[in-house]
């Protein structure tokens, strides 16, 4: 299955970006083939609705799960409406997060873990 990991850079050694909506990049990994690609997040500086637009971008990649630090209510609602599984509280590098996921060490989130605008940074 394809999964999306929010990341601060474009390699497997990049750190997981703790923000979902305003993450710098989405690392897309196919857990069977280990195909790896990166998409830049256009919503980093969006005026509003960043989480929703980012959810849409991730859904469009065909990812079935999202690994991130924090996810707000609007993004969570969009992801869950599209049947995308959400894992929050993920830290470390992209490859470490990937290993934890592959070994079944991550627990699926039962909802958003932060409020709207949590990652706006101002």
């Amino acid at each position, binding site marked *: 299955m394809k999964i999306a990991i929010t990341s601060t850079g474009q390699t497997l050694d990049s750190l997981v970006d703790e923000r979902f909506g305003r993450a710098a990049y989405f690392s897309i990994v196919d857990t069977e083939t280990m195909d790896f690609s990166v998409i830049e997040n256009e919503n980093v500086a969006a*005026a*509003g*609705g960043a989480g929703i*637009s980012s959810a*849409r971008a991730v859904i469009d990649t065909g990812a079935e799960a999202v690994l991130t630090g924090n996810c707000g209510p609007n993004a969570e609602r969009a992801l869950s*409406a*599209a049947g995308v599984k959400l894992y929050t509280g993920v830290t470390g590098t992209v490859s470490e997060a990937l290993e934890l996921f592959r070994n079944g060490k991550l627990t699926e989130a039962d909802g958003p873990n932060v409020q709207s605008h949590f990652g706006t940074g101002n």
Partner: protein
Amino acid sequence: MKIAIASGKGGTGKTTIAVNLAASYARMGRRVQYLDCDVEEPNGHIFLKPKIDLSQIVTVDVPQVDLKKCTGCGKCSEICQYSAIVHLKENNVLTFEQLCHSCGGCLRVCPADAIKQKPLNIGDIEFGKTGEIDFIGGKLYIGYVRTVSLIKEVKRHIRQDSLAIIDVPPGTSCPVVEAVKGVDFVLLVTEPTPFGLNDLKIAVGLVREMNLPFAVIINRYGIGDDEVEKYCKTENIEIALKLPDDRRIAEAYSVGKMIVDVLPEYKKDFSGLYESVSQRLKG
């Protein structure tokens, strides 16, 4: 006549000036309306203590999608700049009503006529009386962003036969523009500090851009420095009132009391304030 009480910086004393001006004018036996347009954090009612006779819900139009008609083209999602309507795979469309700005774009671009409008409650307007003052207060619901729509609705209740005192939100953004739009005079309340001056300059830029006559009120006069006064002099801006940094004013404020009720020596400052504004408008 419509007088807006605005400020760049928050917490400089807009509401203090607005309620005391309203009260002192009403006590001269004139008709006064106090309109609380600081709808995100209204607090005029704390001092005026109006008896509320009527509360009205304000609504805006938001989209409602008929998924049976939706073809999944995604055009609604593309046109919405606020992500208030999002198309996810096939014909799964989600709406985030509280983010909608009611532009109607999604309705127009939908080729399947699958989107209709429905009302969304965004806040309340309360109507009441406090002595001879007509109180009209807007209150935006928490989590909603339609500040401007609610302010516009509050201002619809301005009467021509009254003096309308408009309590404006702080800052210089869209809600402030909406609140001061069309008034006869703006009083910009500031404090004599570098922060007060910085934000005052931005507010002066705004009222000048909108061609609104204005004057400055320096609250807590005596603290900080004299840079605000120097600035006003250089820019040829009238200082309509200097309210001193008096501990008793702060004490009255902290228990929800008006200056004109507990400190009679300031009464003439507020009655004089109205006189000077009306003189300026005549002259």
